[in-house]
């Protein structure tokens, strides 16, 4: 979909730095020079259209609990079945097929590392496939969302 001019400005300006005040949408509207109702209406439309997942905090994995990036090398004919098994876990928040021998990539998050180990073990027992377990060691870039204009 093509976002409206206000939607583009909201996306470019407020993927980070949402004001933590009682009326954040009013504060955003003041920054952008429009009304609070227009901001809320625009966000609701973006959400209905599926463009907006949510408005709020993105948790820092290392502070909010434990997380890891895991990958499985799945025989192609089993990919959808194994992907469905992986997606069943509420602890899985991203689950992608990628073009590689390791063709299924997913992010696991949970309250602690032991919780993730149990899931990785369960998946290995259920699928007969050994996951790659690639927890983050260092972050070199803080996630600030992405730019609509400069992306390739």
């Amino acid at each position, binding site marked *: 979909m093509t976002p409206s001019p206000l939607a583009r400005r909201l996306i470019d300006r407020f993927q980070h730095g949402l004001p933590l005040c009682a009326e954040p949408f009013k504060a955003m509207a003041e920054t952008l020079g429009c009304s609070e109702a227009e901001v809320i209406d625009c*966000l609701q439309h973006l959400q209905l259209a599926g463009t907006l997942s949510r408005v709020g*905090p993105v*948790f820092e994995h290392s502070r909010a609990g434990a997380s890891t990036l895991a990958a499985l090398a799945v025989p192609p004919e089993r990919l959808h079945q194994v992907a469905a098994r992986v*997606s069943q876990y509420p*602890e899985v928040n991203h689950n*992608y097929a990628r*073009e590689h021998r390791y063709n299924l990539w997913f992010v696991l998050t949970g309250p602690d590392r032991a919780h993730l180990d149990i899931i990785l073990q369960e998946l290995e027992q259920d699928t007969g496939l050994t996951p790659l377990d690639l927890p983050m060691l260092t972050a070199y870039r803080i996630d600030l969302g992405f730019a609509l204009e400069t992306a390739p």
Partner: protein
Amino acid sequence: MNITLSEAQSLALRRLLETGLPLTPRPFQALAEQIEACEAQVLDQMRLWHEQGLFRRVGLVVNHRALGFSANAMLVLDVPDALVDEVGRRLGQAPGINLCYQRPRRLPQWQYNLFCMIHGRQRDRVEAQVQALLQEHMLDDLPHQLLFSSHLFKQCGGRFAAPAGASIDG
């Protein structure tokens, strides 16, 4: 100074936040009502968490595919350990790189220790951008691979709060 939230209330608030703020004029008031707290307590807690670094960012969480960003690539590089911080910092500042992380190698299955995410509209343009980036930083001799996503099975926010228990009722 407001009374801080109880442990059960903070946990309940975190779980509510995982699905986002209600899109109403007083979203923190609406959250406060759900955990039987007051708006000021919720705002204090939010600011405290923000200061403590619990949030990576607070704002719009956009579904990039719905905006036409369907060329989602993961660039992985095998960088000598002594250089990984330097290379990571440089790539992390490069335009178009959304995330840049060091992760462990798992030899012999997996040799790559530096991961970058690039979201773009067109695959060939993402490939060209990555090639230009590697040349600019003189990294094109390092072993590397570009893994495009071919299918999205699931995407939602992280679930950090414990999945069971911790009700604030009663």
